[in-house]
């Protein structure tokens, strides 16, 4: 079993993006991005190959879009400035500053669910990510494939409020039974 | 006013027996703590009095002045009666035990039976206390105690019956007298009656451990499983009395083993018999009981029943048949 084969099989089930990463640099071999709908299919592939589940977690990308836009704007501005500088250097009249393009509303920030799988026999840690909008964080459960994912998903639900559709028992695991807050969201205030 | 001397004698014995039971319980706790400590290469109680000898005393004072909680939901009558039901029969059993040639409160012809009869009340006390405290751990523990006692009463009684066949009497005093004159007369070495006598002694000892709920058979108070078992809801002196009853039962068990198998107050080499020898043998057995407690892990419940039904009962029956055959032949 090698990582390349897994990569092929995963792309066959429709993963959005797969990149082989440098293990020494990152600590995992395959970085797979799937849509929530393809998640179960992708995990089934790994299950058939004899992977074991290491962890499920989430990442809250609040502010990511704003940052991206800011970066893009900065880039545009830098380019403009570079152009202007070049123009000035060339002794030309700097072109009038272009009006900043009116941009629409920011796209919604995402919550990301991250699944780590590993193999007992060979070294191939596969990371599967799936993104969902923050306002409707829903992703199908994989606890019917890996019963061990049950707790991991409950924990992720505790921390991020990600709803694992079809999960048999989605009640708080680490937080008190009646907890209705999700502490690892970036906008969480106790 | 005229008072019958017989009454004074009775009272004296009663006081003596109760004091003996209480002191024994207290100092067995001390012995247990010290012995456990030294097995584990610690010192054990040391700061209270010389060698920590006042430790049981302060424990007693503390337990007596501790608040007695009768938790909500328990059956108050049964809850309070249970410790007494454990303690009183134990004290009554002391009455028939001959500690020395003349040191016996009541020399019953059927002393052996009396001790078994009183011992059986003990279980009832535990059961009532456990059920009365309305605690799941306690109830599980009580259920265990009963099955355990039933399972171990059989090999114990069969062994004792074997012994009674050899001695021909149930009078404890007579049984000891028959074993006088050197350790080769003791029942444990009475190989001419049955070559399995040492094994019978082992069986009796194991059954005694099980009957008194001592490790490795301490199912009733299995700390790591059932918190404190039947005593979970007991506080202060209620707990203290249970504890005293338990230790009194150990003393009774050890003295029975001494009387039935080790020649009672007889000196091993036929020198001067006396109560001292009885106490030495008895305390050695108790030392062994404690020693076992701090050496072995606990058996499981079914392991314990297996031991009884698959090993002890067949062997003790075999011994019974062997003994009767030998008695008939010789």
């Amino acid at each position, binding site marked *: 079993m090698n990582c390349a084969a897994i990569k092929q099989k995963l792309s066959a089930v429709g993963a959005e993006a797969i990149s082989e990463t440098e293990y020494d640099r990152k600590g995992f071999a395959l970085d797979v991005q799937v849509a929530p709908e393809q998640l179960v299919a992708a995990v089934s592939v790994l299950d058939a190959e004899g992977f074991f589940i290491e962890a499920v977690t989430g990442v809250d990308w609040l502010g990511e879009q704003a940052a991206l836009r800011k970066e893009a704007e900065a880039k545009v501005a830098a380019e403009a400035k570079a152009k202007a500088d070049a123009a000035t250097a060339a002794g030309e009249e700097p072109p009038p500053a272009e009006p900043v393009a009116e941009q629409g509303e920011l796209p919604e920030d995402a919550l990301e669910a991250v699944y780590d799988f590993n193999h007992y026999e060979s070294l191939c840690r596969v990371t599967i990510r799936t993104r969902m909008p923050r306002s409707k964080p829903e992703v199908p459960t994989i606890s019917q494939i890996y019963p061990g994912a049950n707790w991991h998903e409950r924990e992720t639900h505790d921390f991020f409020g990600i709803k694992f559709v079809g999960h048999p028992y989605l009640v708080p695991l680490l937080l008190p039974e009646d907890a209705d807050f999700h502490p690892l969201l970036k906008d969480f205030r106790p | 006013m005229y008072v019958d001397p017989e009454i004074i004698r009775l009272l004296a014995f009663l006081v003596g027996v109760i004091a003996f039971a209480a002191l024994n319980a207290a100092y067995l706790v001390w012995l247990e703590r010290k012995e456990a400590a030294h097995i584990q*290469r610690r*010192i054990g109680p040391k700061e209270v009095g010389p060698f920590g000898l006042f430790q049981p005393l302060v424990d007693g004072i503390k337990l007596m002045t501790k608040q007695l909680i009768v938790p909500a939901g328990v059956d108050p009558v049964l809850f309070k009666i249970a410790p007494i039901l454990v303690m009183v029969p134990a004290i009554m059993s002391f009455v028939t035990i001959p500690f020395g040639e003349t040191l016996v409160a009541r020399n019953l012809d059927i002393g052996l039976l009396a001790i078994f009869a009183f011992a059986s009340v003990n279980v009832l006390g535990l059961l009532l206390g456990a059920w009365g405290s309305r605690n799941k751990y306690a109830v599980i523990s009580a259920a265990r105690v009963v099955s355990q006692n039933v399972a171990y009463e059989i090999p114990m009684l069969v062994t004792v019956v074997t012994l009674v066949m050899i001695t021909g009497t149930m009078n404890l005093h007579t049984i000891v007298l028959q074993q006088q004159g050197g350790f080769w007369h003791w029942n444990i070495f009475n190989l001419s009656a049955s070559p399995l006598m040492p094994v019978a002694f082992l069986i009796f000892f194991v059954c005694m451990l099980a009957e008194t709920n001592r490790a490795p058979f301490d199912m009733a108070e299995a700390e790591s499983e059932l918190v404190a078992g039947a005593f979970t809801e007991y506080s202060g002196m209620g707990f203290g009395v249970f504890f005293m009853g338990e230790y009194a039962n150990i003393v009774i068990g050890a003295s029975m083993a001494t009387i039935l198998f080790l020649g009672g107050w007889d000196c091993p080499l036929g020198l001067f018999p006396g109560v001292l020898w009885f106490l030495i043998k008895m305390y050695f057995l108790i030392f062994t009981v404690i020693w076992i407690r701090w*050496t072995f892990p606990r058996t499981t419940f079914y392991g314990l029943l297996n031991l009884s039904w698959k*090993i002890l009962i067949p062997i003790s029956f075999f011994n019974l048949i062997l003994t009767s055959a030998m008695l008939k032949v010789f």
Partner: protein
Amino acid sequence: MIDYLREIISGTWSLFVGLGITIRYFFQPVVTVQYPYQTLPMTPRFRGHIELVKDEETGETKCIVCGMCQKACPSNCITVNGEKREGVKGKVLTEYTLDFTKCSLCGLCVESCTPKAITFSKDYNLAGVKKEAYIFDLKKRLEAKN
């Protein structure tokens, strides 16, 4: 039948072996260090709560009130304050409070201290009836030592 008997005998033997081991330990000397009377030697690297170091030359603290320890501390248990005084280079320490009840003894503060003005004390047996007793005013402690 043979297996049955063998198991009984080997099992019983294993029990006696166990008893033999424990009784041997029973007669061996104890390993207890009787604490209030005897004490274990503390290793030089033992980490107690932190303490200010006295400058051997001046007799004062070495602290230059840079605040690095305060910044390094993960649990915000150090408060350092200083003031500018005339005729003295740098700041002078006015307050050094350690809330020991929040400390995790990680040693990041000691590492971050460039002038080596703080060090670990060897107080390993603190216990008391008041919580407030463990919010140390280290400056006072240093002065009390002098």
